[in-house]
């Protein structure tokens, strides 16, 4: 399983970012936006069918976040902490291995 490239940042920010509500909403810790889990904005969630995947990397290339990483065998891994559910990966996938489904929370 691939690891989030933000893992070290998240741990650092959790440790060092004590005061979020600064006067004037000044952000004083570089990279601190990683604690903002934008995945909570999502309505549709990408559903992945590994059997159909040809490992073309198009989803990985097009994901604007990026919320798609590659595992050891170069299959995509979805980071649902930051995936906003934009659907670009599903749109680009040539084999329909990714489909967007409404997420029930």
């Amino acid at each position, binding site marked *: 399983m691939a690891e989030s490239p933000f893992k070290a940042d998240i741990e650092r920010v959790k440790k060092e970012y004590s005061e*979020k*509500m*600064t*006067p*004037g*909403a*000044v*952000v*004083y810790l*570089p990279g601190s936006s990683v604690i903002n889990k934008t995945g909570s904005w999502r309505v549709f969630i990408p559903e992945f069918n590994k059997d159909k995947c040809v490992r073309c990397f198009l989803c990985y290339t097009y994901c604007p976040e990026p919320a798609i990483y590659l595992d050891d065998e170069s299959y995509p891994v979805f980071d649902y902490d930051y995936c906003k559910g934009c659907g670009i990966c599903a749109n680009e996938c040539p084999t329909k291995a990714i489909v967007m489904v409404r997420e029930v929370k």
Partner: protein
Amino acid sequence: MVKKVVSGNYAAAYAAKHARVEVVAAYPITPQTSIIEKIAEFIANGESDIQYVPVESEHSAMAACIGASATGARAFTATSAQGLALMHEMLHWASGARLPIVMVDVNRAMAPPWSVWDDQTDSLAQRDTGWMQFYAENNQEVYDGVLMAFKVAEHKDVQLPAMIIESAFILSHTYAIVDMPPQEEIDEFLPPRKPLYTLTDFDNPIAVGALATPADYYEFRYKIAKAMEKAKEVIKEVGKEFGERFGRDYSQMIELYKTEDADIVFMGMGSLMGTVKEAVDVLRREGYKVGAAKVRWFRPFPSEELYELAKNVQGIAVLDRNFSFGQEGILFNEAKGVLYNTDAKPIMKDYIVGIGGRDFTVEDVKKIANDMLKIVESGKLDEEVDWFHLKR
């Protein structure tokens, strides 16, 4: 101790220089122009190393001050009427970003019809921008106000911008003696700014202009509200310290004049209160029990001080050199609101005076006193809002 005979505008310029302002960004507008001309003259003469940023509009002037202030500099500007209105968006920016910028606004009537004369509606229309507002009665208060405003604005628990407001021409272009303390004493009173964050501390980089989702925005507004409340304390402390150092006490947000035994009090802001105090002296000699309450700080609003005054008087004649269309004079509206949930219920009447520079005289105050006495004695308020000077 240096005493100079200066206009209100020059008093403002000297105060900016003596406050060791680092950046001025401004755009000229009558009757403010001579403030920034004087500052330019200080720089040209080598008397001051202020960085002067000539800009193409008031919106840009405030934007440049915001940028300067975010780098940790002490920033100053001045404007009037239409110029202030054009700055409106940036005024919210300055307070929301918690930048202690100080600005002098020369109260001038809004167009149309064009007018360059005194009227408080320009600054009062910026009531809700999160700026503190101080209304000066005379040139000395313009000078003192600027020095105090920086100290209050830069206080670590306040961090909000402040506006010092003077009357068009009545103060801005009229010369009077202004006492200016020695620079080293001013430096002791107002040491260099200690910003919480600066854009130029490259070892500790920051981002400004963040987005706050509905999950956080609310709390940021609450913090500004609390800072404005805290500013009341700071204003009184700073005003007291100013008095101890320089002999002019500003520890009261409302200056009371002969109100101890007064039945009727005239309440207002700015230069017209000089006329009112003069009138109080005249009326007192004729046996009237009247006093004056000069609201120095309109934001934060001195609610507690108003209550203390209101519970001991029978009538308050509010003198509004401003008007909120569809409602009433703005100070009157605010003052009534403050007293609604209290046991202080003096009869209050709103006199719309001096708008657009209409002369307001001692005789006028006397007429108001007689009108107010009649109302207090009969207990009957004929009308809430009186367009006092109207040609009938």
